[in-house]
């Protein structure tokens, strides 16, 4: 329950902080940190425009997308606080749950019959497919390391004092940060502040959503960021710490994560679209390094 609340709270500020950091770096006037929340509240008060081309798929998709992300939040533990839902193999369910959300957003984008949205849809399908193995290899390495297969136990039994743990920690954090960027279609995969629809991924898929639906999609984006932030924080938070310290560190990490995203987006250029697949596959390669490191730690590969 604590983890749910923490993730929900941190998600409210996440995008606000990114925007603030970016504005600061560009020396622009900063919007309030809760500006995204105000925007969504405003959207919830609005009506909607639906395209004549669309069908029931377009109406149900944002709901499924939001529900899948929201349900995914329930699986995430923080430190020693278990997620609301936890069972053996829950990370497989987690990954496939995000999959069904994606499936629905993709087909709802195709439902509008817009060339732009089709473009975004097939990019999203390709990129998320390519990012999938990286997540599974990271999770698999941890299953190998801890001999447990639920999120909660994976992190609970993560022996952070093991030799070479720092490689696992750093490499996994790196991979998860960028998986978060792929999942949310941010830099360097996609530039959310661009005004050229031809180069967009996620933003262009939701061109036709408005009102309540768009509000839900925005919240789902915050939640996704927050989920990955929480996963990263679990590599750092030790469960022997007391609760308040864990919460403080969690919030600190979320803050740091959003700041890093802001800085990355300010200074990094977007990848060339056709180089993206190669770049995403690189993440799997790094996660294989994590896997090999775990094989060394568990003394299956014996050095010397």
């Amino acid at each position, binding site marked *: 329950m604590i983890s749910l609340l923490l993730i929900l709270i941190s998600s409210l500020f996440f995008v606000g902080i990114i925007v603030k950091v970016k504005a600061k770096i560009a020396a622009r006037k900063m919007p309030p940190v809760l500006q995204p929340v105000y925007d969504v509240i405003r959207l919830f008060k609005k009506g909607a425009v639906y395209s004549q081309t669309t069908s029931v798929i377009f109406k149900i998709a944002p709901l499924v997308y939001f*529900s899948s992300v929201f349900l995914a939040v329930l699986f995430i533990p923080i430190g020693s606080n278990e997620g609301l839902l936890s069972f053996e193999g829950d990370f497989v369910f987690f990954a496939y749950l995000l*999959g069904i959300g994606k499936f629905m957003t993709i087909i709802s984008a*195709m439902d509008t019959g*817009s060339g732009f949205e089709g473009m975004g849809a097939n990019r999203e399908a390709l990129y998320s497919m390519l990012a*999938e193995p990286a997540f599974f290899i990271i999770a698999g390495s941890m299953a190998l390391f801890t001999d447990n297969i639920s999120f909660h136990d994976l992190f609970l039994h993560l022996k952070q004092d093991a030799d070479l743990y720092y490689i696992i920690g750093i490499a996994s954090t790196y991979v998860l940060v960028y998986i978060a960027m792929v999942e949310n279609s941010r830099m360097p995969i996609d530039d959310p502040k661009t005004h050229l629809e031809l180069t967009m991924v996620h933003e262009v898929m939701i061109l036709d959503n408005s*009102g*309540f639906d768009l509000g839900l999609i925005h919240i789902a984006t915050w939640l996704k960021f927050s989920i990955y932030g929480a996963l990263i924080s679990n590599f750092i938070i030790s469960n022997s710490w007391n609760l308040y310290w864990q919460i403080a560190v969690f919030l600190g990490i979320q803050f740091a994560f959003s700041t890093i995203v802001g800085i990355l987006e300010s200074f990094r250029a977007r990848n060339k679209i056709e180089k993206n697949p190669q770049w995403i596959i690189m993440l799997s390669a790094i996660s*294989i390094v994590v896997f090999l490191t775990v094989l060394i730690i568990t003394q299956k590969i014996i050095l010397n």
Partner: protein
Amino acid sequence: MIILFKIAIIFTFVLFIFPKQFQYYFGLILHLVIISISGIWAVKTLILSSKLTLPFIPFLGNNLSIEIDQLSAFFILVIDFTMLTGIIYAKGYLQPYFHKKNKIEMAWHFFNFLWLHISMLLVVSIRDVLPFLIIWEIMSLSSFFLVIFETEKEETIKIGIKYLIQMHIGVAFLMAAFIYAYVSSGETLNFDGLSVYFASHNPFGLFMLFFIGFGIKAGFIPLHSWLPHAHPAAPSHVSGVMSGVMIKMGIYGILRVLMYIHHDLFNIGLFILIMSLISGLIGVSLAIVQHDVKKLLAYHSIENIGIIGIGIGLGVIGLAKNIPVLAALGFGGGILHILNHSLFKSLLFYTAGSVYKQTHTRNIEQLGGLIKKMPKTALFFLLGAIAISGLPPFNGFISEFLIYSGIFKSLHSAGLFTDIVLMFSFAGLAIIGGLALFCFTKVFSVIFLGTTRSSKVEHATEVNSSMLIPDFIIGFMIIIIGFVPVIFVHPLSQIIGSFFIETTAIHQMISTFNNISLSSGVFIIIIGLLWALRSWQQKRQTIKEDKTWACAYTGANPAVHQYTATSYADNFRQLSSKIVNVKKDFKDFDETEIFPKKRKFETHSSDIFENYLITIPSDRILAFLEKIAVFQTGKIQHYLLYALLFLALIFLLTFLNLI
């Protein structure tokens, strides 16, 4: 009851004397009789957890008996279910052919459909080798006649013959395998005799022969090349049944043979796993670039055979390395996926058939926007598409989840090499899942969403209810397995128990399955609540309808600008050009061409395995044989000369004491 079964078999011949309009109903009754008899046998076997042996017919002086163990019982239930939906669906689907075909042709079709059913049931329940091969042959023949139902098309006959030849290559391998086993072990011609051979020999070589023989039926890459042709050519209820259960007979064969192997299993497991990973990855990659919806689904059958094989391969590795979790969950996942695939694949073939029936095209580039005209068919196709992509809360997820659980649970206790193998298998599974999502978002959107791409869609209407009944039945099963997987724990543990595997791991899944049911339930409830919330919110606001937003370009027309299947698959095609091998048929613009003329753009994908293993070698052989044909002059004098020369040769050889 066995008497009734025999009577039903004899009555299939009576079909020919019925007038056309009653043949379907008579066939349906016979199917129902066979289904209820064999279903009772199978359920009895599973409930009593015992084997059932029934005397069947005398055969070459011996009494041939039907033996139903847990594995047979499982397959019998899968066969019965799919045949039931198939025959219900056939009524509506065959309507347009009713006037084209004469009485005998129709009867012949139903007769073969019945015999496909009977032969599949007997394949899984006969253990004597010779009758097994005969029944195997009947199965291939009856499916051959079902495939070439539209005999007026020359292409269909060609494909049918291709199918028949490849099936016989498979049988040749099986015969070789059986004969080799019996010659070297001297046992009776019975499946149980295999255990004697395997006990005293290295099993790998003989298993390879069996794998090729059964693998051609199952469609493992590179033995698959009949599959993408036969499925599109066959009527939809036949392709649904063939893809849903008939190709699983190959899997049955492999499982049955594995049952008798108890040592040196690691290489076999690794071999199955590698073949399956290749089949899964390449099958789905090739599926993405197809335009013909049934060909696409056929490639997905290859992919799913791959997933089943991954489960079985991992199970065998688990047995070899003595990791009971991996063995139980690998076999469990693989076997449950057999059932799951038979459900969603037949559903997809039936709905795709309904679309074909209403639009007369299988080219998805000519479809579009059908969800508005055929809403029920569209929703069932969507259900099948989500299920086959392995996404929760439907059934495909459950079997893949079992395999994943097996892998992740055994990572810690396995050795280094096994760990690396396991890593490749779960990474492979993840990629296959992602590619399936890519493919089915494409095919569903292009067929059903957006606006129409050609005039063929304009007059399409929803199919009549008799063609929707099977969809409802299958859809119900898909949802049940997805939401309450726990009911399958007990039967599954029995089936895998027959492989001498400890089944505790499967029973431990009960609490996990309950949690999955809970999560799926919460998922649906959240969606429902949000729907209610939005309805409440939107009631007080103005909801408008307008054109699709085209980024301020007012001349946009979805019919022209929407994404096509080719453009959707394009970024994947670039990534995997070596495998999918798509050729563009397009003449580039010339610089001097100031007013370019109208031109065509076509893409063709070809299967490199088919090219290099089947087409190119057979073309070479043909070219050689054509050269030999110079001897065939058509003049009787020449032929007499050949006979004379032959006699002279014989005389000469005898004279020189050479023969």
